[in-house]
């Protein structure tokens, strides 16, 4: 299948633009409500921090029907004085491109990579279209490490509510850190900066018919960058606030795509992670400051109910994956009252590693295996929420550090059983 750049109308636009120093991509699907603000912030960021660079803003759209594309086309900054920019030397060019392939964020990013390659871009960034907290400084912080400091990849670093990003905090961050030895705090943050060279590298991979084309894109980009020795950094962007997600979005499908992508990458990069011990920080840009965060509603009762349903109904399956010993421990926890419920980091670490090993051994069809992790994940999340409900953010962060230490300390169990 030919790339998006072979399409006649897109090709004509690219020929007119010829080259660009910076490409900023925004994946969108029915985001008319928020995308105007994101486009304005990106335009302002490019005007303020990269006035002499030729920049292209690409809206990679999944067939929106709410006027998202029109909002992108019509959004302009009329008053540059208000953002303390007298004038911009190079205009910001805009392209609204319907992406192709499997519907999902990964396919949208692929289109951005293709346009970056066609324009021979030096630095690129991607930002979500539903962001409410984006500022022009995000563009500076994601692009500058790549353009001026020689980095190939800049991951985001946000302040988030202690109960937000639980898949990141309880699985993806500890696992990525223990496997590859780099402390990228938000490996699936969603807003990234990367070099044109890395965009070209991403395009050389044949993954666009897999879950990488969906939710798996973020962990894939981060892991590919780390495992292949690209220079990785992170940038502090402040708070991450975006439009509430669709409440109907299925948690188990999300887990399946994200964790499945991480486990798949473990197969690909076994040689890269098997010898890694411990972890080291990555260079961090941006001035870190405290931010006020929105309250989060957590229904712990529902989480515990689902966990107990799992204990009751998935016994055979769980025993085959995690073994009788750990299952008995879970059963004992499930039998306690809600107030006494506790799911320790050590037990959770063993479970995640056992799931990785079961995935590697192809013990069950991947979808069944990973979706059966959902009640366990909810049990661990409920335990974390109850323990840190009345404690401050720093204590919760310390617990995540503690979990990372468990993952690093128990890594030998994973490496010795990986056959």
């Amino acid at each position: 299948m030919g790339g998006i750049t072979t399409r006649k109308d897109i090709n004509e636009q690219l020929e007119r633009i010829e080259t660009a120093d910076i490409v900023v991509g925004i994946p969108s699907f029915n985001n008319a409500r928020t995308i105007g603000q994101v486009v304005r912030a990106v335009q302002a960021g490019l005007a303020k921090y990269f006035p002499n660079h030729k920049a292209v803003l690409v809206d990679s759209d999944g067939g929106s029907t709410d006027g998202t594309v029109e909002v992108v086309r019509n959004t302009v900054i009329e008053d540059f004085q208000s953002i303390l920019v007298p004038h911009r030397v190079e205009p910001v060019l805009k392209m609204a491109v319907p992406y192709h392939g499997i519907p999902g964020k990964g396919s949208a990013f692929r289109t951005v990579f293709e346009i970056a390659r066609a324009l021979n871009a030096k630095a690129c960034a991607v930002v979500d279209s539903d962001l409410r907290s984006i500022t022009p400084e995000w563009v500076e912080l994601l692009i500058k490490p790549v353009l001026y400091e020689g980095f190939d990849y800049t991951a985001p670093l946000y302040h988030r509510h202690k109960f937000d990003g639980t898949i990141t905090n309880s699985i993806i961050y500890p696992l990525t850190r223990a496997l590859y030895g780099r402390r990228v705090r938000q490996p699936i943050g969603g807003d990234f900066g990367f070099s044109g060279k890395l965009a070209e590298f991403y395009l050389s991979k044949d993954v666009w018919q897999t879950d990488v084309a969906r939710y798996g894109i973020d962990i894939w980009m981060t892991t590919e960058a780390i495992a292949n020795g690209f220079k990785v950094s992170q940038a502090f962007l402040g708070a991450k606030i975006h439009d509430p997600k669709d409440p109907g979005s299925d948690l188990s499908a999300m887990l399946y795509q994200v964790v499945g992508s991480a486990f798949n990458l473990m197969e690909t990069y076994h040689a890269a992670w098997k010898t890694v011990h411990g972890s080291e920080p990555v260079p961090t840009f941006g001035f870190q400051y405290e931010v006020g965060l929105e309250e989060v509603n957590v229904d712990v009762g529902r989480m515990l109910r689902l966990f107990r349903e799992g204990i009751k109904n998935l016994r055979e399956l769980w025993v085959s994956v995690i073994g009788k010993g750990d299952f008995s421990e879970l059963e004992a926890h499930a039998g306690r009252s809600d107030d006494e419920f506790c799911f320790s980091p050590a037990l959770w670490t063993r479970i995640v590693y056992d799931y990785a090993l079961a995935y590697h051994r192809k013990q069950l069809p991947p979808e069944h295996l990973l979706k059966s992790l959902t009640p366990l994940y909810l049990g661990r999340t409920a335990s974390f929420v109850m323990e840190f409900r009345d404690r401050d953010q720093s204590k919760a962060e310390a617990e995540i550090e503690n979990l990372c230490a468990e993952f690093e300390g128990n890594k030998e169990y994973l490496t010795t059983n990986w056959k």
Partner: protein
Amino acid sequence: MHYFISLILEPLKEMSVKFLHFAPNLLAMLIIILIGIIAAKIVRFVLLRLLKAINFDAWSDRMGLTAAMRKGEVWAKPSAVVGAFAFWLLIIIVLMAGLGALQAQPIDNLISQFVLYLPRVISAALIVVFGYIATSFIGRAILISAVNRGFHFSKLLAEAVRLLLVVLFVAMALEQLQVAPGIVVAAFSILFGGIVFALAIAFGVGGIEAAKKIIEHENEKKAEDKRDIEHI
């Protein structure tokens, strides 16, 4: 005396003529069976290699076939079982072909009946194997999905669906084997229809409260002004 001797020798002579007439057929049968056994062994060897190359045993583990075999006290590898099945199927075919070389009318009739029935046996066996894999897969998928949605009777639901599928596949296999086809179709229709009807009533009547709770819960959720936890 001469008459008496001819009375003894005549049947022997007749028998030896008949034997000489029959001997090539017997020899042909033995050769067919011998070549057939060697061919069956070669086929089993090649099949085992092929199954190993495509990781058939690992696939069987994933699909629950190995577990089903263990439950039936079969401890050999799934690939070995498939190899043995193919071997013995070929041996039976070879035996039939060998017996055909004898050119005896009753045996010929038996063979033609067997040959006509053989495709039905094979397709019934395939339906049973495919049915088992599909039943395990769908049953497990429903169980996990129901648990993740917090459905209280997840196991019951998964078992009900599994039972329906077992009934469906067994009826299909019996229909293939033409074992009392009229009774099988009638029994299947009554049983399948009965189960579906019973489930519809059970869910319809028993689910009123649950449906009410779900709707109330959804309305409560909409009324909440605080946002939900973000997992990613």
